[in-house]
């Protein structure tokens, strides 16, 4: 139980600690918005050499930054203009939390199950001599195996 809780807590803490730009390839605000040209990549990774929608969005970011707007304000402006789909990561609110926390819930539930199973099994009384591995070989078979293993030795 403690192990599962600890694992979940550590994962949760790490999730909180991971910066949104954990990957070097997504730098700055250009990595936070999807390009609207249909390439299915962010503005910073759009592969088109000349891309009108990307250049327009990057110019818009530069203009808003020039006006002194902060990250949150620029994000809000983009959502107003293009809708929520422009964000490369969904907003951390409401239904979207399912995507953020769902995997951790599943891992926590699985961890809890392992812990409970292990606890139940280790408390169950075992038949005498169960600790030792079942001696599956007869003396004759063991002698045969040892002879063969000796032959294998260099």
């Amino acid at each position: 139980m403690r192990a599962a809780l600890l694992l979940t807590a550590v994962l949760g803490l790490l999730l909180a600690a991971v910066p949104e730009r954990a990957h070097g390839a997504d730098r700055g605000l250009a990595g936070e918005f999807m390009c609207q040209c249909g390439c299915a990549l962010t503005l910073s990774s759009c592969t088109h050499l000349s891309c009108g929608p990307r250049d327009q969005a990057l110019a818009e970011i530069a203009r808003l930054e020039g006006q002194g707007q902060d990250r949150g304000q620029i994000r809000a402006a983009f959502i107003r203009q293009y809708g929520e789909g422009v964000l490369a990561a969904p907003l951390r609110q409401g239904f979207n939390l399912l995507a953020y926390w769902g995997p951790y819930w599943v891992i926590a539930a699985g961890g809890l199950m392992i812990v409970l199973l292990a606890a139940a099994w280790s408390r169950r009384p075992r038949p005498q001599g169960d600790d030792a591995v079942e001696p599956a070989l007869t003396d004759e078979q063991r002698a045969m195996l040892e002879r063969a293993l000796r032959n294998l030795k260099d």
Partner: protein
Amino acid sequence: MSEVGTLAIGMAFLVSLYGVAAPLLGTGLRRPELVRSGRNAVYANALLLGAASAALTYALLTRDFGNAYVASYSSRDLSFWYTLSSFWAGQAGSLLFWAVMLAGFSALVVWRHGGLRDLQPYVIAVLMGTSAFFTMLLTFVSSPFQRLPFPPADGSGLNPLLQNPGMFFHPPTQYLGYVGFTIPFAFALAALAARRLDDEWIRATRRWTLLSWFFLSWGLIFGMMWAYVELGWGGYWAWDPVENAALMPWLTATAFLHSVMIQEKRDMLKVWNIVLVVLTFSLSIFGTFLTRSGVLSSVHSFALSSMGPLFFVFILLILGVSTILLITRLPALRSAAELDSLVSRESSFLFNNLILVGAAFSVFLGTVFPIISEAVRGVKISVGPPFFNQVNVPIGLALLFLMGVCPLLAWRKASIRNLTRGFLIPGAFGALSALILLAVGMSHPVALAAFALCVFVTAAIAQDFHRAAMVRRSHGESYGRAAVMLVARNHRRYGGAVVHLGMILLFAGMAGGAFATEKEAILQKGETVSINQYTLRYEGASTYPTQSAVVTAATLTLFNDTHRIGVMTPQRNIHKTHEEQPMTEVAIRSGLREDLYVILAGLGDDGTANFRVIVNPLMMWMWIGSVVLTLGTMIAFWPERGEALRNRARYVVETP
């Protein structure tokens, strides 16, 4: 030749259907000649699909533009190797490639595992059922042998994005991985159907599983290499739906490779192992479904087609049949052994499995979340790299941690002494490295954790190896010989350790990405741009034609501080057959410490050139890690001298 190909595929479809029915009927009616006939159907299927593949290769190499597929994906100016790779550049060709690989693997399985009489009829039926699905698509939906009424003088050519060595190898390795997992899947279903629920099917498919995992790994690695050098955005992984679709079966397959050891050693996790195999195979088909269906927008949109629903039905069929068989056999799958303690190697493997499957679920949820969101909220959202990095990086770190922990714990129950003895030195190394990195100013929490864990895991592997070598040394061997003999006597264990070392290098390379720096500059001739210790001076651009494209190359002289260290020439190419799609050819200067990556983003009318310059630290270590991973897989794959004897001994013990 097209007629030969069409006929061969059609016959392969019929033979596959026969290959499903004959062995099942043979088993049901106790008529072994029908099972034998089913075996022959497998060989016939391989011959027929081999003939169809030869016909398509011939059509490609002889530039038979009367063939619609050849006209669509090749052209006269295409080099020999890229002409060959046109085979799998389009949908029909890649389906044929899949089908012929499956047919070849199936023939090999039937020939190699002829002794498994109970399992074989069902194995043949599953393999031939899968073959029937693909040959049905080739026969009725998408044939690579359709003829054009008026053959063009030249073909449309290969998509320039695919004209890259990475893309030459990426699809075949990816497909080999996907196809390879049909084998353990077929054996798992056969074990369920025949009620042979011991670990026979696992022993029979161990090498197939490892080989398929290896190909799946290299499919991903080649894909990353291709994205890095060809897509020209400075990274190697964009968390694109199709990339994710390839990652998911790799994660579940990795979980299977680990959990299978528990079944072999302790006779546990029988149900779980079957679930993992079914999941891996289903996710492999799901990957193809995502690539072909277009339900999600992707950089792989060139592979779109209308056969998505058919793949979806096939996935449902796989899951349905597997679930029914699994549920009806549940009582017989009860394990004899149980977990003795939560602190044991078995439970650490279970946690490792949990994290791997959790990671696969996380990638799956993120990939399909736009569809879920639109269905539930009616709002279109995007799920891109920032989301996946946030959610998956902690999971990746947990996995890295467990990679170090698992080998340190004893089987059944770890004592306090075992824990102290195992963790003290690796833990101290990990903590010390974290302190040193903090002292030198590394403040990025994720990178810090990743590097410290890399050191911890490396120390754990080194300690494990050293202790084992010392035991042999105490019996009179020199340390060197002891080390060699250790690996020679236990390929699987130490091959696995080498694979883990490769993974550590991959993790370190990924963590290095946190320190990437980037600069954009518009330069006139003679002007410079500086990034970190590098300075690039723009010397001018030249345009010249090649056999297949018009190339515009910018020349930049590179200085490290004030020393001239080379010249870089990023390019912009316009291919004759795809003029609407100008391509970047990035210039990369790779070193052990970092890559300098230069993109020619555009040329102005006033003689200026627009460059993006990126410094990617530790990138080379990812590719070195991939080579180490290959080496480890080869060691683990290699048969051991004692293996045959152990199998014989097991036979002696098991035979009443």
